């Protein structure tokens, strides 16, 4: 685990489910977070007891419905009483509504809201950052540029000074039938010109050329990413989402991820996500806070 310099305060909205409480508990025990659990306090205490967790490790704030819980979590972050906001048992859309609220939410002015994940895949030689499996269905050029920026920022926090970013397509060729390849060419030139910084960028590249040196040799394609990508930028949510789920299901991949574009890290995970994944997300959010 990465060395975290200071303890972060995390506000959890609608915090009564087992996975969330388990993950938060682990992070509290490890000593890198303080937790504010917002929800039906009786249920939170009940779950803690059932799991053998000392509820006194947490600050518990009572809220009688999920909307109130998420508003309170965001409010705490907004006024500086929390460094990180995390979604508990509440639905993602309701939760994000509070986060994105124009007056009281956590959006940075004019920022693109997107999601960056980091995957540990046993069959790949390093961590792989991916974007966007969760927020933007069909990113346009500006959104893709923002997504790349977020992913680069995260990779650099992990110590990858100049991450190699592959812009993923079905082939490495340019084609006007694939609009994404057009965006990709523009982005590569922007990286050449220093308009997108701190990265080595190439695309379109298919997944093999992005992550497999052998394919580079076989195909004889010259690319600075060279089968050694740190970041994969996908053309759509529907291509990125099955990518990470496939790796989790079939290749023992683990994912941690965060919403970007907010004043403070926001953790959004699917309610069905394991305790381990949630724990990784908490650690990641502390790194990015």
């Amino acid at each position, binding site marked *: 685990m990465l060395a975290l310099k200071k303890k972060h305060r995390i506000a959890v909205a609608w915090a009564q489910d087992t996975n969330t409480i388990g993950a938060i508990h682990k992070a509290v025990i490890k000593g890198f977070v303080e937790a504010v659990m917002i929800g039906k306090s009786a249920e939170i205490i009940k779950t803690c007891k059932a799991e053998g967790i000392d509820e006194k490790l947490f600050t518990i704030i009572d809220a009688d419905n999920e909307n109130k819980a998420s508003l309170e979590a965001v409010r705490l972050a907004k006024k500086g009483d929390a460094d990180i906001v995390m979604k508990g048992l509440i639905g993602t859309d309701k939760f994000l509504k509070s986060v994105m609220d124009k007056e009281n939410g956590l959006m940075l002015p004019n920022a693109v809201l997107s999601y960056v994940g980091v995957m540990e895949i046993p069959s790949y030689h390093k961590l792989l950052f991916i974007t966007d499996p969760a927020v933007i269905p069909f990113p346009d*050029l500006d959104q893709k540029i923002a997504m790349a920026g977020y992913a680069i920022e995260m990779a650099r926090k992990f110590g990858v000074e100049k991450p190699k970013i592959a812009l993923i397509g079905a082939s490495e060729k*340019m084609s006007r039938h694939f609009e994404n390849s057009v965006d*990709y060419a*523009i982005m*590569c*030139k*922007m990286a050449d010109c220093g308009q997108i910084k701190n990265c080595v960028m190439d695309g379109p590249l298919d997944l093999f050329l992005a992550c497999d040196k052998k394919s580079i040799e076989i195909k004889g394609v*010259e690319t600075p990413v060279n089968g050694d990508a740190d970041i994969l930028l996908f053309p759509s949510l529907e291509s990125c989402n099955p990518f990470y789920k496939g790796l989790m299901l079939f290749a023992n991949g683990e994912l941690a991820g965060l919403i970007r574009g907010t004043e403070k890290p926001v953790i959004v995970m699917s309610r069905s996500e394991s305790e381990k994944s949630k724990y990784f997300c908490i650690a990641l959010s502390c790194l990015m806070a």
Partner: protein
Amino acid sequence: MVLKNLNDLKRIVEGGPRKKLVLAAAQDQLSLGAVVRAWKDNIIEPILIGDKEGIQNICVSNNYDITGLRIIHEPDTEMSVEMAIKMVSSKQADILMKGKVGSSTLLKCVLNKEWGLRTGNLLSHFALFEVETYHKVIAVTDVAMNIAPNLQDKIAIVNNSVACLNKLGYTMPKVAVLGAVEMVNENMEATLHAALLSKMNQRDQIKNCIIDGPLAFDNAVSLESAQQKGIRSEVAGDTDLLLMPDIEVGNVLYKSLVFFAKAKVASIILGALVPIVLTSRSDSEQAKFDSILLSAAACK
């Protein structure tokens, strides 16, 4: 090989068989002057089609000695163009040149579906400049034909020009895609096209050249200026071919080079079965002569 000046084109033409140039509507003084001179210099073998009496009168009053030159009498302008084009498509001539006929009439005939000179490629204008202040000749396209080329058009224009430069001995010409700035700006379409063309070149989808852009004009032709801006580019400062964003920019650049920088220019139309010499009526006899020279070199 790099051409230092337009006269270097002679080295390409010399030694080879003389190309047959057919001048359509030949009763035009400057065209005849240039053609006769190129004939005397052993650059081409001309065939004149047009009003025979008119042709002879011009030659007599200007002291052009055309003894032994083949003249085909066809007083009707359009018919003379048609006849000239048919000579080319039946391989009796290698180069087509416009005489006393409007460009649009000639091009309409070139594009004739039955007997024209279509290849399926876009027609584009290719100009080669000799400017004292640049270390070699510089090609510019398209300054006269395609008005507002889209990306597909620009790919075709680059391909036409690169094929021509390859024939002139440039194995890997350096192509600068011109913009007003050297960065990508989403509001400037030329810079987006430049990024796409560069990438297609990297992926070998546009071959036999090195493309970079967007480059502002100064970065394209001056290494010093590119270095000052910290631009890393194989093309900057050493451009062989400048790709224009549109005809307005191209036409103004062309004319400012000629009028302010006293550049010499040769120009042809590419993309048809053979090179076409289609200089404007205001071009000097020298420009027409150099264009003939270029067309002979380009059909090698």
